[in-house]
């Protein structure tokens, strides 16, 4: 399958990229890692008139500590993030999630920003961002704006990005000594999209967990916070009741890979495992 014809422009700067997108009037796509976009173009699932290549823009490619937050430029490669000492130290949940994303050759090109902006409901990074309580920084012709992770993901491949805007960076709170993380996913084969997965973060307070954030992926049109289950866990020790609270939180989809019943069941299994991790992990 060969793509339909399109024009290509290499952005010289973020400002230039925004100009090109503005001129294209909604008929352009941003080319970042390309690991999802070019597959879609090859399959003719998408036929934009213009691709704006933002690879090589140095100011989108940095990993910095910004106060008590870790900032990752949108063009940071997934493989680079996975190996970055800063990410390992300050956002270990991202490192854990990344090891489940596709395969090494894909991660060498795929970007942090690209995965967040695509918002595939079965992807790890969007759920990770929500679990960490992170935010995205968006660049547009009017300037920059920041959106919290939960407000950013709106629906199936739908985010708060407007046409003509470019995701510039993501920020997550740096891990502290009280940070607790958990991650789990079920996939039929290594590297596949998850049938269901769970990203979790919490703060240890004595022998209790506070600020529990349980974010499931692969169960809905976007990352789903299991708020009732979170409340149960914050209240006290883990019990079977938490699993039934989960049934109120989740209404998974059915597809050829998994039934709704399977996803619901596996979500419960994941919950048990991940809450165990939250209780055991510690920096």
């Amino acid at each position, binding site marked *: 399958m*060969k*793509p339909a014809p399109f024009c*290509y422009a*290499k952005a010289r700067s973020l400002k230039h990229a925004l100009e090109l997108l503005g001129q294209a009037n909604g008929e352009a796509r941003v080319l970042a890692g390309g690991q999802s976009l070019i*597959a879609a173009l090859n399959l003719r699932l998408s036929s934009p008139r213009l691709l704006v*290549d933002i690879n090589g823009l140095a100011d989108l490619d940095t990993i910095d500590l910004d106060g008590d937050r870790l900032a990752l430029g949108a063009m940071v490669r997934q493989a680079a993030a996975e190996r970055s000492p800063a990410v390992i130290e300050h956002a270990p949940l991202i490192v854990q999630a990344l090891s489940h994303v*596709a395969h090494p*050759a894909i991660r*060498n*090109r795929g970007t942090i920003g690209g995965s967040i902006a695509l918002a595939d409901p079965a992807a790890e990074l969007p759920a990770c961002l929500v679990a960490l309580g992170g935010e995205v920084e968006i660049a547009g012709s009017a300037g920059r704006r920041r959106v919290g992770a939960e407000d950013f993901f709106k629906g199936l491949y739908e985010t708060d990005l407007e046409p003509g805007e470019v995701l510039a960076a993501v920020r997550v709170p740096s891990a502290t000594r009280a940070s607790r993380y958990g991650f789990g996913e079920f996939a039929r084969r290594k590297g596949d999209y998850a049938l269901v997965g769970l990203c979790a973060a919490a703060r240890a307070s004595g022998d209790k967990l506070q600020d529990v954030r349980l974010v499931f992926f692969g169960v809905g049109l976007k990352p789903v916070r299991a708020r009732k289950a979170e409340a149960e866990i914050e209240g006290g020790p883990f019990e079977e009741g938490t699993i039934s609270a989960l049934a109120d939180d989740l209404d998974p989809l059915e597809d050829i890979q998994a039934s709704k019943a399977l996803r619901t069941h596996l979500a419960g299994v994941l919950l048990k495992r991940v809450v165990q991790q939250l209780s055991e992990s510690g920096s």
Partner: protein
Amino acid sequence: MSALTIEVTMIVNGEEIRETVEARKTLVDFLREDLGLTGTHVGCEHGICGACTVRVEGEIVRGCLMLAAQCDGKRVETIEGVSDSGEIKDLQANFVTRNALQCGYCTPGFLLTAQDLLARNAMPSRDEIREFISGNYCRCTGYHAIVDAIEKTAEARAGRNS
């Protein structure tokens, strides 16, 4: 300046290449059709089978998920170059003696991927080998012989270095 065709300059297997390409042409199609480097293969065109694995700036990538246009100014290596340089001579020899290939269509992708693994992890376990190559599809061998050949190469390299 946006265009349907782009002039690209890249270093492919050590040779400077200057060509005009359609914007929509993938790197693997450019290598195979415009440069006659047919050693890299196309299996799915959606990034899953790994047959199109090449190196760009020293890193393994899917040739079907990059545009030739994106490789302007970049260093690209295919199986032909990596083979002729002698870099993977031992790996190739072990693939041959162990019969870690049957039809050979997936083999260039596996060789480049295996070489990348051994560059990062000098003594991978069999499980680690299987995990690293889990993005490369082989229909003929069932993978066992491939794991054997990579393991043997790692052991020999470690033996030479110790």
